[in-house]
């Protein structure tokens, strides 16, 4: 029987600012898949304690809204980087990974899913129709990889232009 790797899916953003809620919405969609080897977390922003959660998993997928990137979504590899930011409010995926590495000696494979959004400026709930379509496309793409526990592997994954540099698993 295939042993699936433990995956953390972490969606972040503010659902009260329209498409900024794409991250939490994506997390909710993944949670609905009810995959036992996938931990789903959702929050307004990344924070220092996420480093402890990241350190407990073999792979992590950060999910966030993207204001200007490729439609409908893009995937890229994330490496530990400098977490220095002007506040804990804006800790980046690279910063979380750096803390996981430095504090807990953990270095999981890590990816960032940026889902293209369009409406960010008003206080309002609910995704714009185009953002909702992009979310559906992203979840359709991810679901097989998450079910199989093969995040970062396979030809389908490599067909994503930015994810083609993903390292080998394990």
């Amino acid at each position: 029987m295939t042993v699936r790797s433990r995956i953390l899916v972490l969606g972040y953003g503010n659902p009260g600012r329209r498409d900024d809620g794409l991250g939490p919405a994506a997390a909710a969609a993944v949670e609905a898949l009810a995959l036992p080897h996938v931990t789903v977390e959702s929050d307004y922003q990344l924070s220092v304690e996420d480093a402890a959660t990241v350190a407990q998993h073999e792979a992590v997928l950060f999910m966030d809204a993207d204001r200007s990137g490729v439609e409908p979504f893009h995937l890229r590899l994330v490496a530990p980087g400098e977490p220095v930011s002007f506040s804990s409010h804006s800790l980046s995926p690279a910063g979380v990974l750096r803390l996981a590495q430095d504090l807990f000696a953990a270095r999981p494979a890590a990816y960032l899913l940026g889902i293209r959004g369009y409406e960010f400026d008003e206080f309002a709930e609910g995704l714009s129709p185009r953002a909702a379509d992009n979310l559906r496309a992203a979840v359709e793409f991810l679901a097989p990889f998450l079910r199989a526990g093969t995040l970062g592997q396979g030809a389908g994954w490599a067909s994503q232009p930015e994810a083609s540099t993903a390292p080998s698993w394990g």
Partner: protein
Amino acid sequence: MVAATNGLKRIAIEPVTRVEGHGKVTILLDEQNRVRQARLHIVEFRGFERFIQGRPFWEVPVLVQRLCGICPVSHHLAAAKAMDRIVGVDKLTPTAEKMRRLMHYGQHFQSHALHFFHLCSPDLLFGFDADPQIRNVIGVAAKYPELAVQGVMMRKYGQEVIKRTAGKKIHGTGAIPGGINKNLSIQERDELLQDLDQMITWAHGAVKIARDYTLAHLDKLAGFGSFDSNHLSLVRSDGAMDLYHGNLRAIDASGKKIFDQVDYSRYLDYIAEEVRPWSYMKFPFIKSLGPENGWYRVGPLARINTCDYIDTPEADKALKEFRRATGDKTCNITMAYHWTRMIELLHAIEKIRDLLHDRDLQGTDLVVTGKRREEAVGLVEAPRGTLFHHYRVNKDDQVVMANLIVSTTNNNEPMNRAVQKVAQDHLNGNQITEGLLNHIEVAIRAYDPCLSCATHALGQMPLVVELVDADGNIVDVKTRGSV
């Protein structure tokens, strides 16, 4: 009014680092590099009170959490307390009140831990003038790895308390008008008890670090960004510190009471807000003293000053030690915020311990109803200070008025004074260095401001400091790494 800038040089620190949200400091220097003006500007627009109008009142405790991703729980509870009164409830069931208190103390614990270990410890451990390459959380992790791990795990513990009381970390729905929508299961209680002793041990350690640092540097810290001020907070009817509920007490710089045991629903009889053209954040003041003399501080330093005692034994012991060390009188030392914040951290975890052993948390009587009212105020002592939520609701159950005075807004004038004092003491006549500019940020950081909260903003910006001469020419530029 904006000061005349003829012949003055302008330095801008934007954004201020290692605080929550986005603020900007501007300093005007004359030709001899003397400080003529120093201000903390909040540059993002505030709009939440408008957004909430027209929404059904029962949505408010959940909706207000959108206001700020840093302290959603504080807003959740302040709004819930107001909505309790809207539905005619003045007293919750024991289970409901204790669940809310547990949530609140979880919030205090994680917020204070995050601020101390992640935001301000680099300055305290390495010095205000240390190389910025190490004066950050990675520098702390490299040289004091145990402390860095403690900070992360204490923050995580507080968030786990919140998750089990609010229902989830995001969109928490635990507090509803008139009560709570879940109790604490035995399993949830046992999960939280597992790491409790470790958290108490670490909280003691944090108090020791803050205390030892303050006492070792008291000569330097006593005057750093310090000034006499009034102080405001909630206190219990017997004068004890109470972070969740109480009456308003204000004292002056010497400890003399300005007003005491005021029902916070009457706050408008005692507090007013002034608007100034150069900032989107307002300036609250005590009405009887006027805007010039009526400004006040809130938060840990104010709460330690206003309370008569703390009702948990270890924190009360720490309070007494603090008072002995500061001369048994009201403390106006700005950097003492860090020590007092850690005393509150210890108090919060002691309260969590007491509540986790209280079987009322497993009770099933969760909600009370009463006779509907049209206007109500909810107040809590959020980690950063006194938080006011005031609402009016029409007969169609819609919110028609919302007024929020958030903790950081209460500290607006004090933060400006701290900036002014530090700029005058440390920048006059000196060459402008990054370390000197960090002195200004250290003074602001002591207040643990949530600038996002005060203005409900989003956004990020790399830090650029420009020195501009009176003709508008850029003389020098310093840039932090972009975020």
